């Protein structure tokens, strides 16, 4: 299960004069979980549709497991599962019937389809409600039913468009656990999301979309490095002191910014908590709290779009 699963080169899509995707390159290896990030209208969904062959490309090529989605769409769609944004099911049919229908479309023979459906439903913990109409399902259950469909079809690649949008925290966590489980079993997962903490917890690499291009593609650490900030953030609480003056220019400190009365955020290249503590105490301040954490993805993301939106 090694090697390149998805390869896109110079992919572009124009709608009339409007450019939705302006030429992107993407290379995804087997078993990876990739997050597609970016503001609305940045071209994430269009890219997904082009990867699946559901919309024609204006320029560029796509290969999924070595196949062209426009020339061999059936082969590609057999190996790639797609869970669209706000997935819909036939409301009047039960969850099991919905899966049975897609199994027939995929050409699975009846007996094997039944086994696979049962196994898939058990895995997403929908066995109890499998014979209830989908109209009674909550949003989280629908998303899990969508995942069950991918499991049932035994896809090697799963493309999930906004899988967690509109889900409550618990359903989100359940879905993320499922995605991680799929990835451990060797499935390549491509997911787009606005919820950055979601992407952070499951993705190996992220692609930042901006105005139809991929501005950045790599791991979170690489993203932090690329943005130029230190990878470490220290939240400081202290009294009787102006940390902005005291710590600015100290060794290892990249920047200091106030976040409230007596609170600062210090950006550093390494863990400089002892040095900070000493500086504060020596300057006569009383230290209340020092908290070290890595840069969260949403911070990196916001900073990226602040700094690079004029490029690209």
């Amino acid at each position: 299960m090694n090697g390149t699963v998805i390869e896109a080169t110079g992919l572009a899509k124009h709608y009339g004069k409007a450019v939705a995707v302006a030429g992107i390159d993407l290379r995804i290896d087997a078993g990876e979980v990739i997050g597609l990030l970016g503001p609305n209208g940045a071209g994430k969904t269009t890219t997904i549709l082009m990867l699946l062959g559901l919309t024609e490309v204006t320029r560029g090529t796509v290969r999924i497991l070595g196949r062209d989605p426009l020339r061999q769409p059936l082969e590609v769609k057999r190996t790639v599962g797609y869970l669209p944004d706000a997935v819909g099911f036939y409301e009047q049919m039960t969850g099991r019937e919905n899966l049975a229908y897609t199994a027939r479309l995929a050409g699975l023979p009846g007996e094997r389809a039944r086994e696979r459906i049962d196994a898939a439903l058990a895995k997403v913990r929908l066995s109890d409600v499998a014979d209830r109409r989908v109209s009674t399902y909550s949003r989280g259950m629908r998303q899990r039913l969508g995942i069950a469909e991918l499991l049932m079809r035994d896809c090697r690649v799963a493309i999930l468009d906004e899988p967690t949008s509109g889900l409550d925290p618990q359903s989100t966590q359940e879905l993320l656990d499922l995605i991680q489980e799929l990835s451990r079993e060797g499935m390549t997962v491509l997911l787009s999301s606005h919820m950055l903490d979601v992407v952070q917890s499951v993705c190996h690499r992220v692609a930042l979309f901006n105005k139809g291009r991929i501005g950045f593609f790599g791991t979170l650490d690489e993203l932090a490095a690329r943005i130029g900030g230190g990878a470490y953030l220290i939240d400081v609480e202290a009294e009787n002191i102006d940390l902005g003056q005291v710590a600015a220019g100290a060794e290892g400190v990249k920047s200091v910014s106030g976040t409230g009365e007596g609170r600062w955020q210090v950006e550093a290249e390494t863990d400089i908590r002892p040095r900070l503590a000493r500086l504060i105490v020596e300057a006569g301040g009383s230290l209340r709290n020092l908290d070290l954490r890595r840069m969260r993805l949403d911070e990196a993301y916001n900073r990226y779009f602040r700094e690079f939106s004029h490029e690209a």
Partner: protein
Amino acid sequence: MKREGSPLTGVAAIALKEAADHMTSARMHLIMLLVLLTAIGAVYGAIGRIRETTAEDPFLFLKLLTVAREPLPSFTSFLGFLLPLVAIALGFDAINGEFARRTMSRLLAQPIYRDAILFGKFLGGLLVIGIALLTLWLLMTGLGILFLGLPPSGGDVARGIAYLAATLAYAGVWLALAIAFSSFIRSPATSALAALSVWLVMTVFWGMIVPFVASVIAPLDPLDPMSVLAQFEAQQAVARLSPQTLYSEITAMLLDPAARSVGPLFLTQLQGAVIGAPLATADSLLIVWPQISGLVAAMILLFTIAYVVFQRQEVRA
């Protein structure tokens, strides 16, 4: 660019699922109840009338479908009027309904071509209409046997089956129309309204528009007797643009073995003819063959329009 794999993969699965959906939908139950009630009413009226008037007729069972007793119209005119309604009810949300339910992108991500979705939906609707028509026809025949006490003859059955096939083609025209509307109008309610207005124009208003159009195309000249014929022929040609006209001509020929022509007949053409003698079933069919071809052609044309529109549509709703 050549694509691999058959575009018909999955057609059967989609057609059967659509048919099953229609069979269990409240919409279909309501409209079939309407059709059934009117059909039974019409045939019951016809039976009463046949008992009163006809002593001996070789094609008694066909009379069952065509004879009317005031104020009820005959079974065939009922069907000609209501069948489009059934077809529209089955097809008006075929494509845009999938978008509205947000199932379209998931459906297209299955290993099937788009072609299969449209074919499957059309075949599914046609299958349901076919089953309903067959049931209706058997029911009418059964009623006839019960009340008239006679079994249908071979000729009755042959003409009945030809009539059923033509009726299916007629329903297919309206189903294709409804599906075409559903593929280029995004809101199911609007596409239903659009299809219904075409139905109203074709079945109710077309008959009023036709003489007017014909008099413009071929004006009457009081000094030229042939201009009367020219206008009549123009009128017929314009009227035949409506599937309703084609269908009623087919019905008239197939269910009345004594009918000789759907157009104007001259006395000279009737020389030597035995008036009232039945034609062979094949001969009757031959006379309305152009009409049947016309219906099938209209169905294919409308389906092609739907097909082209749907194939070019963006998936993203």
